[in-house]
């Protein structure tokens, strides 16, 4: 249950402002792809176009194609709600639903897509999802407590459990560790390594060591200046991107000689 994503000539606009220009990229199934680049270069914006979450902002639109195993996400008659149920997302800050228990948080997405679920099935699913997110042992005795009572790292893993409970094709992660301490970060990175056996994972990160540690392929985005659109500069195997990149800009960025 994982699919590949092929993006062709994608332009992203906010109103008349061109935020991301002409991105073409092929993201392999069952692999981890990292997006790196300076702040404001459009990597998060681009990530959000992959499950149509950018449409939450008024005036946002795209030109071009995003193909999920050949099906265009922006084709006529495609419902963004369906797209998002197949392409899950984990956000920069952990966002479990504060009024729901840990168990209800995990089941939140499932209850949307498949209203009727027996208690037995739900128990199995909660356990499997929490185990999949390496959180089961820490919370199995307090599933009825609110999710907001967990630590930041646990909350983020709860959000990952919530995302994988609906068995998506792809999981998008928008700087999932930027609000976490190093130990929690390590737990999430280990988890990403396990997730790629089953899912296509795309992660935006500001931390280049993290990109080097977790990803198979890396895409470097950059921006020419304020008010200019972000562009995909280079895309390749992570090892090559960090040791021997083709572009000078990439080499400057990954070696810290940026600016």
């Amino acid at each position, binding site marked *: 249950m994982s699919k590949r994503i092929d993006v062709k000539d994608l332009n992203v606009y906010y109103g008349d402002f061109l935020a991301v220009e002409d991105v073409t990229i092929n993201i392999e199934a069952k692999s981890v792809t990292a997006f790196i680049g300076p702040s404001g270069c459009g990597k998060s914006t681009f990530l959000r176009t992959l499950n149509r979450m950018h449409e939450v902002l008024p005036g946002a639109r795209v030109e071009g194609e995003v193909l999920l195993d050949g099906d265009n996400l922006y084709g006529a008659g495609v419902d963004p709600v369906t797209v998002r149920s197949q392409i899950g997302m984990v956000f920069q800050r952990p966002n479990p*639903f504060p009024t729901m228990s840990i168990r209800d948080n995990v089941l939140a997405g499932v209850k*949307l897509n498949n209203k009727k679920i027996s208690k037995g099935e739900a128990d199995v699913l909660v356990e499997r999802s929490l185990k999949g997110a390496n959180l089961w042992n820490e919370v199995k005795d307090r599933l009825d407590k609110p999710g907001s009572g967990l630590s930041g790292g646990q909350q983020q893993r709860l959000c990952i459990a919530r995302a994988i409970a609906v068995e998506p094709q792809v999981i998008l992660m928008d700087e999932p560790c930027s609000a976490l301490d190093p130990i929690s970060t390590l737990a999430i990175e280990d988890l990403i390594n396990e997730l790629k056996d089953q899912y296509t994972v795309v992660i935006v990160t500001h931390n280049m060591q993290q990109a080097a540690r977790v990803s198979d392929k890396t895409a470097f985005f950059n921006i020419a200046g304020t008010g200019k659109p972000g562009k995909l500069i280079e895309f390749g195997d992570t090892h090559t991107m960090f040791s021997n990149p083709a572009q000078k800009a990439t080499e400057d960025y990954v070696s810290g000689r940026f600016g």
Partner: protein
Amino acid sequence: MTATSLTTTQGAGRAGDKVFSGAALAAGCLILAVLFGVALFLVVQAIPALTAPSAEIQGGEGFFAYIWPIVIGTLIAAVIALVIATPIAIGVALFISHFAPRGLASGLGYVVDLLAAIPSVIYGAWGAAFLAKEISPAYNWLAANMGWLPIFQGPASATGKTILTAGIVLSVMVLPIITSLSREIFLQTPKLHEEAALALGATRWEMIKMSVLPFARPGIISAVMLGLGRALGETMAVALVLSSGALTASLIQSGNQTIAAEIALNFPEASGLKVSTLIAAGLVLFIITLAVNMIARWIISRHKEFSGAN
């Protein structure tokens, strides 16, 4: 740097702090003093009515026989108002905060706020002169078709000046309070929680059910309680609209009375024990309002653990 430089204070800054904390303390004490003063006044003035022989109280059967029908009448009018206003207010607030295009939303919000600025005597005049007349055919229909329910028992009032009309007028008056408070709460829903729901594949309505309404729940309860406070205490509109009388179960016959309207209509010509009786009625209203607020706080606090405040 010696130890003395740490103990030396800058005079001006400290003086400002003292003035401010003194002023804040005085303001806080003043509120308590006023509240205590009002409560004390009500109790002291009400004692003659509470201790007088039954035969001397209006109706001749004692204070409690006098007060309980109008307590029930007050609650009926307030409940009608909330039953009508709450769903409409939440719907309008959600429309403004999450569905309407931005231009329409601000215009509509402004109109709703304007509703709150209309004086209650105007609502009363509108209810008595226009609404009561226009709505009486509907009461006749209710009496004919739903008359088997005690609350719609006929014959319907010919003038339409009933407790149901008063409740409808009250609902229009509390609508802007509940709407604007709810709207403010809905707008404060963290974007993160809304996006969490949308990213799971929720439709807009499912997103509202998953993230907006749970977040806003304590706020909605507070808004409804504020509306209830207004509905319980509203005087002028009820006094003008309702053709009052003895307690009746039917909402579409004339009859029933509310505490606030009872006080307003009788106070100008009252003297002696009658004044005392009316003030005792005011004390009862004060206690009801207090109880309503305490129940609301209790409801909110029961769910504190899941409120997201931690």
